[in-house]
Every structure is written in structure tokens, then in C-alpha cells.
């Protein structure tokens, strides 16, 4: 050890950087946990609602990242699975009197089946063609939800009204605080499962299919099954997120599931970092807050600038991609190495 300290070889520098990044990671985790647990007791109701929404988006982004970031299948239609999850929850709760907490796993399972079945024919499509097929899904979903024939179930364009659940077991929490914690627990579980999944044997197979499908198949990986399963799992995540979204918002209507939502998900995983588990948190923060701030910013320019929020959002996005082409996760991944290289340079002189 002392020898390594005296002679900073490339190897020891890398090891130090790795140890440093691991320590940083643990520190970041700690700070994040304190922040996430303490937030409900300092933030106001509306802000808390926004952060619950961030957690919900993060779950959906996590699913999309498994599909797109890790498995390399582009989906422009994940808003559709989010909508199916949301409506499954709302219909189960209003028409079948299922307790709201029980609707979450059921919605996830329904979406898993839907995603798996959609994934099977989509197997024949690659790259941009798959993007178009999923795009069609995103375009069709709000229209289908509006369709009169389904009015009895979906409530048509009026949507469905849900009550806001209160904290159980007489916990001394407001409704907003309780819902935030519900989202936090669900998100923690989903993150844990996703991290397990991508780290293990199945995760390697998923990445192998992205990196070199022919070689992956030669290694004995059943590509069709894995791709369809990725679609299913990814839809399951979107479905759980959709169900939580309905619970937190307390209302559901077709307007909430437009094309912009699906595109936002894609923006979220790219901003957060493709093929990254923790990056999606930053992606979720981005898609929750940046459009709002773009709105507020454009208000500063007065009445004449009503069209500007989109432009500001766009400029921010371009700037971000320019500064962080590998997303927030990419920057975090390379930052410790960059810093250590920066600090170790003078020694070499």
C-alpha cells in the first residue's frame, strides 16, 4: 500500500479513483436517503406532490431504460403503458372496489402482459421501425381512451374521479405526505429489483443482445424471448408508475397521456443517462420541473412571449445534450476519474 502511494502508477491511480468513486457513491446515497426521507416534513403540499410525481416518473423511466438503454430497443410509446396502468388502477378502484394499494401490482401485471404481447410482433422490427410502431401506440392510446364505446369503463373524455386516500393505521401523516411515502417505498422496491436484474446473468444477456445480437444468440441466449420479456418488464414498470400516478393525482383522463408524455420519457432516460439505474432520477427531475420552469421563465418576458416555453425547453435540452452527451449518469461516472487526473497531474512534473 505504501509503495503504491509513493509511486503513483496508472494502476494505483485507477484503483484510487475507483475507491474514491465508490466512497462518493455511498455518500451520495446517504445524502439522497436523508433528503428523500426528510422532504415530506419540510416541503409544502404542492411541492410534495411534485416530488411524488418525480418518483413516479423515475419508475417509468427505469422501465424504459431497461428496454432502450440496456436492451437497445427504442420505444416512443411508453406513455401508452403508463396510461394502461393508470386506467387499470382507476377502473379497478372505481368499478370493482379494489383497495387502491392492491391495484398497484395488478396494474403492473396487466401492463406486463400487454407489453409482452406487444413485444412479440415488435421483435420483427428493429431500430427506427420499432420506434415507429411504438409511436403509433402512443398516438392511438389517447384516442382509444376517448372512444365512446369504452365510456362505461373509461369515463370517456370526462375521465374518472378518484378520492385521495388517507394514511392508514392512523399514522400522523397528511394525505400528501402519505402518498409521497407510498411512492418512495414503491420506487425503492422497483429500483432494487432493477439494479438486481441488470447486474446479474439476465442483465448481461440483455446487454449482450444490444451489443451484438448474433454473438448473443450463439452464446445460447434466446433473443426473441429476452426481447419480449424486456418489453414486458419495461411495461410493468410503466404500469406501476401509471397506477401510482392515478392514485397521487386522484383523477385520470385521456388528455394526460398524449404523445408528449411518451416523448418526455425518452427525453428523461437520455438526460439521465442511457443504461443507468440512478441516472433516471435526474431524468425524472428534468421532465417534472424543467417544463414548469420554462413556463415561469417565459412569463418573465411578458404577454408577447406566450409561445416561448417550448423554445426555452428546447434550448435547455440542446444545451444539456451538448454539455453532457452521455447524460447526468455519464458525467457522474467520469467525474471522479477526471478530478483525480486533474489533481495528480502536478506530481508528474
Amino acid at each position, binding site marked *: 500500500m505504501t509503495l503504491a502511494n509513493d509511486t503513483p502508477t496508472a494502476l494505483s491511480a485507477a484503483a484510487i479513483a475507483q475507491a474514491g468513486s465508490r466512497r462518493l457513491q455511498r455518500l451520495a446515497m446517504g445524502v439522497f436517503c436523508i433528503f428523500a426521507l426528510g422532504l415530506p416534513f419540510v416541503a409544502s403540499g404542492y411541492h410534495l406532490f411534485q416530488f411524488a410525481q418525480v418518483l413516479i416518473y423515475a419508475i417509468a423511466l427505469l422501465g424504459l431504460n431497461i428496454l432502450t438503454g440496456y436492451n437497445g430497443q427504442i420505444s416512443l410509446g411508453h406513455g401508452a403503458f403508463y396510461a394502461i396502468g393508470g386506467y387499470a388502477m382507476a377502473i379497478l378502484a372505481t368499478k370493482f372496489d379494489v383497495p387502491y394499494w392492491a391495484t398497484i401490482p395488478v396494474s403492473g401485471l396487466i401492463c406486463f402482459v400487454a407489453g409482452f404481447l406487444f413485444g412479440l410482433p415488435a421483435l420483427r422490427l428493429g431500430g427506427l421501425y420499432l420506434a415507429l410502431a411504438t409511436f403509433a401506440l402512443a398516438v392511438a392510446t389517447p384516442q382509444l381512451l376517448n372512444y365512446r364505446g369504452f365510456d362505461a369503463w373509461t369515463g370517456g373524455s370526462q375521465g374518472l374521479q378518484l378520492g385521495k386516500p388517507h394514511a392508514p393505521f392512523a399514522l400522523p401523516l397528511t394525505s400528501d405526505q402519505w402518498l409521497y411515502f407510498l411512492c418512495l417505498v414503491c420506487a425503492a422496491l422497483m429500483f432494487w429489483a432493477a439494479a438486481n436484474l441488470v447486474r446479474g*446473468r439476465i442483465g448481461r444477456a440483455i446487454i*449482450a443482445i444490444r451489443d*451484438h445480437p448474433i*454473438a448473443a444468440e*450463439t*452464446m445460447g441466449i434466446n*433473443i426473441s424471448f429476452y426481447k419480449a420479456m424486456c418489453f414486458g418488464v419495461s411495461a410493468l414498470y410503466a404500469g406501476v408508475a401509471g397506477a401510482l400516478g392515478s392514485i397521487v393525482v386522484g383523477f385520470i383522463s385521456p388528455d394526460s397521456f398524449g404523445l408528449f408524455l411518451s416523448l418526455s420519457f425518452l427525453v428523461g432516460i437520455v438526460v439521465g443517462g442511457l443504461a443507468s439505474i440512478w441516472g433516471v432520477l435526474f431524468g425524472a427531475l428534468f421532465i417534472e420541473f424543467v417544463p414548469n420552469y420554462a413556463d415561469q421563465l417565459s412569463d418573465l418576458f411578458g404577454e408577447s412571449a406566450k409561445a416561448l416555453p417550448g423554445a426555452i425547453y428546447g434550448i435547455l435540452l440542446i444545451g444539456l445534450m451538448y454539455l453532457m452527451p452521455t447524460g447526468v449518469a455519464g458525467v457522474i461516472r467520469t467525474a471522479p476519474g477526471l478530478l483525480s487526473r486533474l489533481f495528480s497531474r502536478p506530481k508528474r512534473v
Partner: protein
Amino acid sequence: MLAKRLQGIILMPAPRSAKSNGGGGNDHAAGAPSRAIRMPRRRKADCFGDMSATPRTGAAPLLVVEGVSVRFGGIVALDSISFAVAGGQICGLIGPNGAGKTTLFNCLSRLYRADRGAITFEGRPLLSASKHEIAQCGIARTFQNLALFRTMTVLENVMIGAHCRARGGFFADALALPLTRREEQRIRERAMALIDEFALGAVAGTPAGELPFGTQKRVELARALASEPRLLLLDEPAGGLNHEEVDSLRGEIQAIRDRRGITVLLVEHHMNLVMRVSDQVVALNFGRKIADGPPGEVQQNPDVIRAYLGDAA
């Protein structure tokens, strides 16, 4: 004259000595450490009892290719190819560019569909299996142009090789059940052993795409062996390697056969290597088999000489 000299250059090395050629099939088996060779040996014993006195040609064929034809549009890439490879042999597959060697390989690993014919591996018909079942059957391969998973580390690449030898599904992995943890541990240990064997320890944590060409080739070999194959298909393993690397490759190929008892089918342009390691050489030209036999015989075969040198010979 010229033709004779060229023949000397191309088909340079002397055939393997009669001694190593004749009894080799069981010599290596007898001398091998017990752990590697178990599988094929038991099978042989099942079929034939004590094989020590039987000449090699009588050994049970591990792989039988019968009348395999592949057509791409109007081009006949393979025209009714038949040959057999006995267990424990190293079989070289040679032929000029475009002779159909890689096409045949791709039929064996089911990447291409054979239009006609049959391929039998250990008595099992191979052409009715799916692509992803080939590894499970006990056939592994390397690729002519590297096919590593570039963003994954060397360790992960080798671990992927063992994918077909481990259990566990999406939900078991997501929930980190004890089963998956045990399997993961087992695969990791085996991969690490292979990494040590191929002297890749220093780069185990490096993404495969960042490594030099020769090293990547070794990673591919380790990855192929991780699936515990009984037949290993090597597609131009010496391509792009320098002189020393080819020498060490020769040792590695022989070690794979001798120590693990794995049968090797080898496509190679490097004649020196093919003629020195192979027990049997199959020569193709324009999709047809033109010669099949011990290396010494094949390199004297007039059709083979003509295929490489043209009619001038």
C-alpha cells in the same frame, strides 16, 4: 517448377509424424487430467468399450455433415458437403476465399439455414434446433471478425459464455433469490479460472472493445470455452495475429483438445498452423469438398494444389 515452389510455400510444414497421427486419439486421453476429459471419454466407453487398440478412423464420429447445400440466390455456396469428425480430433477446414468455409460454420451454428442435407452432433439432428439451443447442445464458436460484447468487461464477456450453463430467470434475478446468487458465484469462479488460464487477469475489468486485437481473440476463445463445449468451432483464429501469437495459439488449440478433450473444427488460412495442429483436413473449393484426410495426404492432393495455384499447376 514455379508451381512446385509455390506449393512449398503455401503447404509448407511437414505432416504430423505417423506416431502422433496414428495413436493420438487415445494417447492424449490417457494422459489428460481427469477433470476435463470426463464427458467424451465416458461416451466412447459406452459405445465401444475399451478403445485403446482401435485405430482413430474407427472412433465414433462426433459430428456428421451429410449432403449439406446452401444457396444464396443463384449462387451455390455449399454443394452437397459431407464429412465426419471423430471425437477428440482437430479437424482443419481449408479452401481459397469464398470456398464456403464460413458458410459451413454458420450452418453448424444455425446462423444460416441449410437448404438440403443433415448435420448430426452426438447423434442428434442439429438443423432442427434453434440458434440459441446450439450452445446448450455443446457447440461453441469464435468469429472470423471479432464478435465480443464491446461495452462489457472481459470478465462479463466470459461470464456470458457460461450463460447456457446456468439457471435463473427474470424474476429470480430481479428478486436476487438465493438460487441466482449461487449460480452467479459459480459462473464467476469458472470465468475467473478461464481468465487466468488465458492470461487475461490484468484486463479482466476492462471493456472488451478497448483491448488490442490479439487480446480480444483470446477473450473470444475463453468466452467460447466458458460454455463447456464438446465441439469448438474456430473461424480463422490466426487471422491478424503476429508470428509469436500464432505460435502460442497453436499451443492453446492443442491444449484445448488434449486437456479438455474438446473436438476442434478449425477454419484457417494459415497453412502452417492448420497442417501442424490438424489430425484431419477437409478442403473446400467453390462450395464442393475436394479433399478429406490426414494433412500430409491433403496437401499432396492435386485438386487442392490446383485450387490454390490455378490450372498452371
